[in-house]
């Protein structure tokens, strides 16, 4: 059996990811049904299956650079299909929060065009700010 060894720095990151998401990425056996069921796949530079693989190997830098978790809309299509019970939307949320909690917003509310604020429903604003600002 191949053992996956990770360095101390990676361990800290992976422990944090596991604690925030409540998910054990080693559960995943890479069937790819998450990628297959993802409606946003074409806009992602790294498929959801690969994100879990990177997490399994502690590839922090690659994980942080991927746009996957910023494209994910938390639709839970992957989550209901996963045969291993991995709640991938939770993993995506943890990855988003690791950036957002450094005060690095993906959307700046003060910079949104006035037209958008006037036109968009409250539900778009609230959910967008919840997911894309710290």
């Amino acid at each position, binding site marked *: 059996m191949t053992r996956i060894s990770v360095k101390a720095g990676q361990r800290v990151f992976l422990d944090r990811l596991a*604690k*925030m*998401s*409540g998910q054990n990425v080693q559960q995943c056996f890479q069937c790819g049904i998450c990628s297959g069921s993802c*409606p*946003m796949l*074409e*806009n992602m530079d790294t498929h959801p299956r690969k994100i879990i693989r990177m997490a399994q190997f502690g590839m922090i830098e690659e994980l942080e650079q991927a746009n996957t978790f*910023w*494209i994910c*809309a*938390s*639709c*839970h*299509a992957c*989550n*209901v299909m996963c045969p291993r019970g991995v709640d991938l*939307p*939770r993993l*995506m*949320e*943890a990855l988003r*929060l690791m950036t957002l909690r450094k005060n690095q917003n*993906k*959307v700046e509310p003060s910079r*949104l065009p006035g037209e*958008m604020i006037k036109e*968009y*429903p*409250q*539900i*778009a*604003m*609230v*959910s*967008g*700010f*919840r*997911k*894309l600002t710290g």
Partner: protein
Amino acid sequence: MKVLYYPGCTLKTKARNLGDTAVESLALLDIELEELSRWNCCGAVHSLADDDLIHLVAPVRVLIRALEQGGGRLVTICSMCYNTLARANRVMRDDPEKRKTINLFMDEEPDYQGEVEVVHLLSMFRDEVGWDLLRERIKIPLKGLKIAPYYGCTLQRPREVGIEPVGRFDLMKHFIEALGAEAVSMTSADRCCGSYQILGNPEVAKDASSIILADAGKSGADALVLSCPLCEFNLDRNQGVLFEEGRISKVVPAFYFTQLLALALGVDPRRCHLELNSEASIGLLRDKGIIAS
């Protein structure tokens, strides 16, 4: 019958076509939707990080208000509110550790343990009103209208709060048929519309919405029926933009389920706030003879 309901932010403003038509229709079915006397925003999305309990405070506060007002159950009309409140309720009911932390934090409130049952209005039609009664009360059957049910994400996922098992769309199908319309199935019925990405990554959201609308067009549907103001925005009100940008070749308007219900129950179309839908929606209803030209 009096039923306690939670409107949420959008139903009182940009989605009055969902909220007002629900209240008026239900009254015609002898159900009084009694608005929660004090409520706040539910937060729109469920908190997915285990160390992010602060975002559960808003929905839990709503649930406490419901319990105080004597509501053993709380009806929601917006599917995102339903999802957020139902999931927060499950955390309070099933997770003793988080429940304890949240109750301690909200020390000005009575302790809450998930006592309220959160129900989506569509489930109430199936489980309480019944399709036979609904059929009996219809005054203007929506004949000749082909409608595709669109559930989006939040009515069925995650499974533990789904109003119907994943991949089954019988509830809306029966609803559409009870109104006298024809239900048309499409493969994108539970595909994400792009959701809040319309704020952060509009191109991504537009791609997602366009796929659904193209599928609806191919399925032969005249319109979509839905229950979420964010889906409505992405799929209906934003449809003109999608068409202009060449992303879709056929316009397929969307209606809230309560708007179609109100029209079928004989509510004056002027009270159905069709002006808040896309222009194509009014044109379609005129073409089908459901509203006067």
